[in-house]
Structure formats: structure tokens, C-alpha cells
């Protein structure tokens, strides 16, 4: 159990690191320009990529930085989405408010699920979350909750119009407006994650991952940190779920099956488990690869995912982010 995730060196390097401003500013500028350059469909896809990236980052905080496994994050994604949808559909709340509420509801759901799950070491937690991920669509369809969740039919979520002054002055479309909102939320979430990882709390999280017994004997309250990390991870995924519900303007139980858990897990592994920005690459991967895969053979996209996943484990265990770091180190050596 000592070293579940094999990237200890990497995390030590990032401790106390400053945000690389020179790298981040161009990325922000490019990210902000994209919706005005690309068409509506590409903008919509970009929005989905960022939403996935936030969810993957949540999973990454849990697995990459705290060494716990979840195969049930589709459940938290669903809770976030349904929280937003129910508040908008039944109570007519403004959609913007439902995003943080979706996250907070998930935080408590995750914390409460993580609390008993604390007694479960690594694999057992994976098993318990697997059960959660498989059971949730059925719970959402249940006739007892039908009044609330809309049962198999799901719920519609209506978005308000883009604020008038933005339309008048900049001609902003709905897709562009929501792209920008999701973009800002994503930057905020990434900034929070960065600070979390580089704080005392982050070091405690990683200490628990690397050697739980040593961490405990150094006075780290492992149970508290583990369940809190689970809560924070669920919070991220819940925010993503709430935004996805609003963007797609619809929630239904079948969008949150176990396959979604697999998808997020794939994104995390391919992006790189101990990298924050790797989550963006993970999001791109799980959204764009199926499009390419469908061209090769319809219906085989998950098989291609599976093969890539296994190859990643053999060839580049620290994911895409690890590969980039490696290349950067090589190039520096040559120069």
C-alpha cells in the first residue's frame, strides 16, 4: 500500500511552486479568443471539453494527489446535474446560482459517502464507488423520485437569454456566452486546485497517498483529510455536472451511467494523474477521440479507448502531462 501512485518525484517538485505566469497568460488569451474564431459547434464542443476537464480535475485530486480510487464519479456528476435541473425546473431558480449549489450539494454527498468509505482501503473504496456508479441511474429512474427527477423522461433545463448589453455591444451568441462562463469557472477551479495542492493541506494529501502510516505518525489526521478530499473531488465533479445540465438543457438518467465514470477515469489517466493541466488534455481526449474512432469503425470507440488506456499504463504511466514534462527535460538537456 505504500506507493499506490508512482509519481512521487513529480509532486515534490511542484510543492510550493509559483504559477508559471508566462505559460498561463497565453493560454488564457487563446482560450478567450477561441469562441470568436471558431464556429458555433466547435465552441459548444470546447465548452464540453472544459466541463469534462473540471470533472477530471476533481477525480485527479482524489486519485492522483490523495491515492483514493473512485469508479463512481458519474454519480456525483449526476447529483450536480440534477441539483441544477431540479432547482431550475421546479423552483425557477436562476441558472447561474444553481452551479455553485450543485457543487456544494455534491461536496456534502461526497463527504458523507467518503466518511464510511474511509475505513475502506484503496480497492475496497473502488468497489464501493463502482457499486454507487452502477446503482445511481436506477435510483434516478425510480418511481419514488419521479416527481422530483422526472423519471426516465428526465427534466428540461431552460437557459435565460444572454444579457442584452452583451448582445447589443458584442453580438454575443448563447454558445459564446456559456463558453466564456465555463471558461472563467474552469480557470477559477484550476486556480483553487493549484493553491490547494501547493498548500499545507496539499502536502498532507500527498503524504497520505505516499505513505499513510508515516503520515499518520507525523500527526496528519488521515481520516479527515481523506473524506475532505473526497468531498472536494465530488464538489468539482458536481460543478461540472451542473454546468453540463445547463449547457445541454436536459438531464436524463441514461446520461449518467457507469460508462460516464469510465470516461472520466480514462480522461484522468490519459491526461496524467498528478498533473493539474493534464485534466484539460484528458477532457479533449474523451470528447474528441470518439469522433475520430467513429470514422474508423462505428461503435468501436470504447474499444479504442480501452486499448489506448492499457498502452498508456505500459508506455507513459504519468499520462500526457508526464510525457510533455519528459520531453521538456530532454530538450533542456540538449540545449
Amino acid at each position: 500500500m505504500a506507493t499506490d501512485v508512482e509519481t512521487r518525484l513529480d509532486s515534490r517538485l511542484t510543492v510550493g511552486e509559483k504559477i508559471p505566469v508566462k505559460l498561463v497568460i497565453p493560454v488564457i488569451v487563446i482560450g478567450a479568443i477561441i469562441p470568436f474564431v471558431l464556429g458555433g459547434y466547435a465552441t459548444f464542443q470546447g465548452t464540453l471539453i472544459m466541463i469534462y476537464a473540471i470533472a477530471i480535475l476533481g477525480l485527479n485530486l482524489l486519485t492522483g494527489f490523495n491515492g483514493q480510487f473512485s469508479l463512481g464519479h458519474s454519480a456525483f456528476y449526476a447529483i450536480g446535474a440534477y441539483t441544477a435541473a431540479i432547482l431550475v425546473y421546479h423552483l425557477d431558480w436562476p441558472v447561474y446560482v444553481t452551479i455553485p449549489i450543485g457543487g456544494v450539494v455534491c461536496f456534502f454527498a461526497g463527504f458523507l459517502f467518503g466518511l464510511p468509505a474511509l475505513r475502506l482501503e484503496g480497492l475496497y473504496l473502488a468497489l464501493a464507488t463502482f457499486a454507487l456508479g452502477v446503482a445511481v441511474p436506477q435510483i434516478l429512474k425510480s418511481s419514488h423520485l419521479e416527481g422530483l427527477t422526472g423519471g426516465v423522461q428526465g427534466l428540461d433545463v431552460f437557459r435565460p437569454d444572454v444579457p442584452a448589453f452583451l448582445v447589443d455591444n458584442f453580438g454575443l451568441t448563447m454558445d459564446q456566452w456559456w463558453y466564456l462562463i465555463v471558461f472563467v469557472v474552469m480557470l477559477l477551479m484550476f486556480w483553487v486546485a493549484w493553491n490547494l495542492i501547493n498548500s499545507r493541506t496539499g502536502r498532507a494529501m500527498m503524504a497520505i497517498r505516499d505513505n499513510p502510516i508515516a503520515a499518520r505518525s507525523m500527526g496528519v489526521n488521515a481520516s479527515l483529510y481523506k473524506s475532505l478530499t473526497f468531498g472536494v473531488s465530488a464538489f468539482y465533479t458536481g460543478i461540472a455536472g451542473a454546468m453540463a445540465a445547463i449547457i445541454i438543457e436536459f438531464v436524463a438518467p441514461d446520461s449518467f451511467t457507469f460508462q460516464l465514470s469510465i470516461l472520466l477515469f480514462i480522461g484522468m489517466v490519459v491526461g496524467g494523474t498528478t498533473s493539474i493541466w493534464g485534466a484539460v488534455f484528458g477532457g479533449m481526449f474523451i470528447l474528441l477521440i470518439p469522433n475520430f474512432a467513429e470514422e474508423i469503425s462505428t461503435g468501436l470507440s470504447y474499444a479504442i479507448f480501452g486499448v489506448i488506456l492499457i498502452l498508456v499504463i505500459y508506455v507513459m504511466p504519468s499520462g500526457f502531462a508526464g510525457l510533455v514534462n519528459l520531453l521538456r527535460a530532454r530538450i533542456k538537456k540538449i540545449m
Partner: protein
Amino acid sequence: MDLFLQQILTGIANGAIYACLALAVVMIYQAIDHFNFAQGEMAMFSTYICWAMIAGGVPYWLAFFATIVVSFVGGLAIERIIFKPLHNAPVLSHVVVFIGLIAIFNSSAGAIWDHNIKTFPSPFPSGSFGGLIGLHEVGMFFVTLILLLGIFCFFRFTRVGMAMQAAAANPDSAELVGIRVGWMLALGWGLAAAIGAVAGMMIAPIVFLDPNMMLGILLYGFAAAIVGGITSPGGAVAGGFLVGIIENLVGTYIPAIGSELKLTVALVLIVTVLLFKPNGLFGKTIVTRV
């Protein structure tokens, strides 16, 4: 009273399937200390192979045994090709590979045999036993019982079976007395795949054949393994029957649950047992030393 008896009997019949999957999960757990999350998808794929053979005109029982052989070889190959290089790799790598296998099997089954739900033939006559339980369920129960007995005798009375136990219990010592531990692990995978295939072929006439058919059943298989104790093959089998009976009784007598929240029952069972009796009913406590 008839309803009660009926539910118990159906529970035992379904429990036999859960027992098989639980046994397969426990066998792999003992060999490599991991839960095989892909067990269900492997069984589903085997069932499709059997279906394809029957659809191609092969008689049922020939297809049945041919599928067992194919699954055995497939399981063996998975261990040799994919898991052998991962020996001593961290937990994450294993979980990732299991997830990869789920994706591969699920997606290829859909791509090869399409996603439409198919009926799967039963080798047993239709009709029911005393109006209580279908004859297929009775046959399914006896087939799995024979299988479980066979597995028991294999581990108890054959050299290879004993060697496999030794390799799982104490790999280093087993290696020293000349047992080829690596191959014993592969054999375990092969057996687990074959047992899963039998479970899949037996349950398919009831739940119908589609790429996602085993997900819920595997969940019950896990629940059975956890209830019985993940370190005890006998416990896993007992857990299977117990979980099968609980599932049916709860579904019948607690109206709020009915048939639509059955997976939640498995979730609650797994979490409850892990919380209050993590070693299950028959498992032994494992102490980790620093």
C-alpha cells in the same frame, strides 16, 4: 406461503449465478490481490461467443463446452499478455487495465454482434417445477452446483489444484518447492474466465443477451464475495446464495424497493458489510505490517 417458497427458490437459483461470479472474483483476488472489475464483461463476451456458435448451427451443449474452453484460453492469455508485465505495479495500474478491459469487451461485443437485445436459448425444457420455479432455473441451479463441486474437488484432490493454492497462499515458498507460480496465476485466470462463462450462459436466457447484461449481475457477484469474505472461496459461494435470497425477499416484501431498486440493495449490502464486518462472514483478518 407459496410466494415465500417461490422467492426463496428463485433466490437460490439466482444465487447460484452470483456464487459463480463471486468465486471467479475471489480466485483472481487470491492470485493477484485485485478485484477483477472486468469479470462481468468477460463473461458477457463468452456468452456472445456461445450465442454466435449456436446461431451458426452448433448444437447447444457442444457450443457450451467449446465456449468454456475458449474462455479458459482467453483468460489464460489475458493474464500472460496483459497482467504478467504488471506484476508488482501499483494499484492504479491494475484498476486502469481492468477499466480498459471493460471498455474493450463491452465495445467490441456491441460492434461485432450489434447492440440489439437477443434471446438466448435454454437447454432445459420450458415449463415449471410444481408451479414454483421455472425448469430453466432448476437446471441452472444444478449446472452451477456441478461446476462448484468440480472446482472444489479440483482444488482439494488434484496436484495442480493444490499447487495453485500454494502459489496463492505463499508464492515464495511455492516457487522454492518447484511450483511455477506464474503459470498457476494464469491458470487461475483461465478458470475464473471459464466459471464466468458458465454463469453468463446460464443467466442469459433470463436477462437476455446484450453488452450491458452483466453489469448488475457482477455487482451482485461482488456483493456476494464481500458478504462471504473475499479471502474465502467457500464463503463467496455461500455469500452468493445468501445474496440471491436476500435480493428476492427484499424485492418482494419491501414494496418501496420492488424490482426497480435492486441495484441499490447491492450497493447497500456492499457498503454495510464493508463497514461493519469488512472481512465478511467467513473471511479471515489480514494484518498489514509496516
